[in-house]
């Protein structure tokens, strides 16, 4: 455990530095994960490039059709952001259960994304919102849908010399709502046994599902979208029966493991229950009366 610590002043400097020090350098943002990995001797970088103070990578901006979250935005900022109290409430729900307040004041959403932990809590919400990542590297900037960005457990399509600078979320149409639900052995400080994010948009009449996006964490090698369940729900009556069916379909789509936190079998059952519950919460939040 011995490394040099670098503090570039701009994104360009940071990328240049990463290129120069490749492959022995790692970016560090909040550090809540990487410092533990270094201490556990899981990684041993020779250089850490601190991006936490880079200008322009923090904070939440809003235009008429989208939100842009700086990659360095802290969970606590999201939790307290008034614009997310409405249809994007899942963002708040996930941000508020990641570690304790102390971690929420340190950890960044960009860090959580590039870690690509299968059990990341924030990633399912972003995935259910079809988030797009803006990335800067030596060859300029590119944008990638989050869906294509995470490729496996701890693996992303990010090059070691690239930085995620922001995350963009399209605003939801009317009659939309989101929900995030999580199960763990405790009520706080938990790595999810399973977590589910749902985004539901109802048809104009308000009784059928126009579009549904379901993202599930800790139930497969990476956070995934339950496409079969989503496809089934489109055009279906938004009711308990269809939500329960979607839960069953999602449970068939998942590929959980057994570990010290839970068995694969229990995780699969949770997926079924939690998908149904997340959808129910969305439906209630759309403000429509249940039939």
């Amino acid at each position, binding site marked *: *455990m*011995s*490394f*040099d*610590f670098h*503090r570039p002043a701009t994104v360009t400097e940071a990328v240049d530095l990463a290129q120069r020090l490749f492959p022995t350098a790692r970016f*560090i943002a909040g*550090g*809540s994960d990487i*410092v*533990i990995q*270094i*201490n556990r001797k899981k990684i041993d970088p020779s250089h*850490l490039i*601190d991006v*936490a103070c880079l200008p322009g990578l923090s904070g939440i901006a809003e235009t008429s059709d989208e939100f842009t979250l700086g990659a360095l935005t802290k969970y*606590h900022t999201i939790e*307290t952001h008034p614009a997310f109290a409405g249809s994007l409430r899942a963002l708040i729900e996930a941000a*508020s259960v990641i*570690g*304790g*307040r*102390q*971690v929420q*004041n*340190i950890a960044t959403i960009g860090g959580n994304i590039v870690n690509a932990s299968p059990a990341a809590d924030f990633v399912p919400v972003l995935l259910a919102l079809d988030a797009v990542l803006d990335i800067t590297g030596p060859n300029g900037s590119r944008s990638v849908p989050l869906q294509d960005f995470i490729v496996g457990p701890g693996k992303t399509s990010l090059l070691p010399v690239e930085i995620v600078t922001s995350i963009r979320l399209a605003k939801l149409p009317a009659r939309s709502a989101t929900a995030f639900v999580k199960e763990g052995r405790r*009520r*706080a*400080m938990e790595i999810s046994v399973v977590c589910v994010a749902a985004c539901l948009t109802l048809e104009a009449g308000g009784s059928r599902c126009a579009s549904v996006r379901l993202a599930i964490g800790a139930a497969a090698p990476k956070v995934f979208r339950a496409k079969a369940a989503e496809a089934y729900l489109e055009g279906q009556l938004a009711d308990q029966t269809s939500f329960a069916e979607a839960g069953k379909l999602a449970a068939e789509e998942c590929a959980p493991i057994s570990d010290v936190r839970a068995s694969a079998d229990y995780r699969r059952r949770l997926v079924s229950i939690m998908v149904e519950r997340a959808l129910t919460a969305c439906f209630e939040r759309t403000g429509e009366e249940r039939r």
Partner: protein
Amino acid sequence: MNRKILNIVVNGESHQVLIEPHWTLLQVLRNEIGMMGTKENCLEAECGVCTVLLDGKAVNSCILLAGQVEGCSITTIEGIGDPEHLHPLQQTFIECGAVQCGYCIPGMILTAKSFLDENPGSRPSRDEIREAIAGTLCRCTGYSKIIDAVATAAERMAISGGSQ
């Protein structure tokens, strides 16, 4: 060894400390600056005994590299009150019987202070307090009296006009 100078303000006093890059803020506070009220346990941000305020916000000092807090202002338990001038939280923790072994208490008080300072003058519910302090484990008290202490301090701070 690639040592570097760290500039840091701790409890209002500026310090220049020669650090090794892998040192954490916790190590700097305990080993270099002598702020032993910041405690050490899990070193993985799971227990909260190392909590300090970084620019006023509660953070786990065990997982922050010293280099990350260059130029920052840190408040430790020693910085919020002393035996003659206790912070309202320090006062109510004693009065409410919230202290047993006491090892989590500096971190717990700072976790609570960060929370109360966010909403000056508010009177949070017991459930809101529970959620706010959940990142700091206490094995002695079962939390009830800690929640009493935070609620009582919030009440007093609200009456006396917000943050202290």
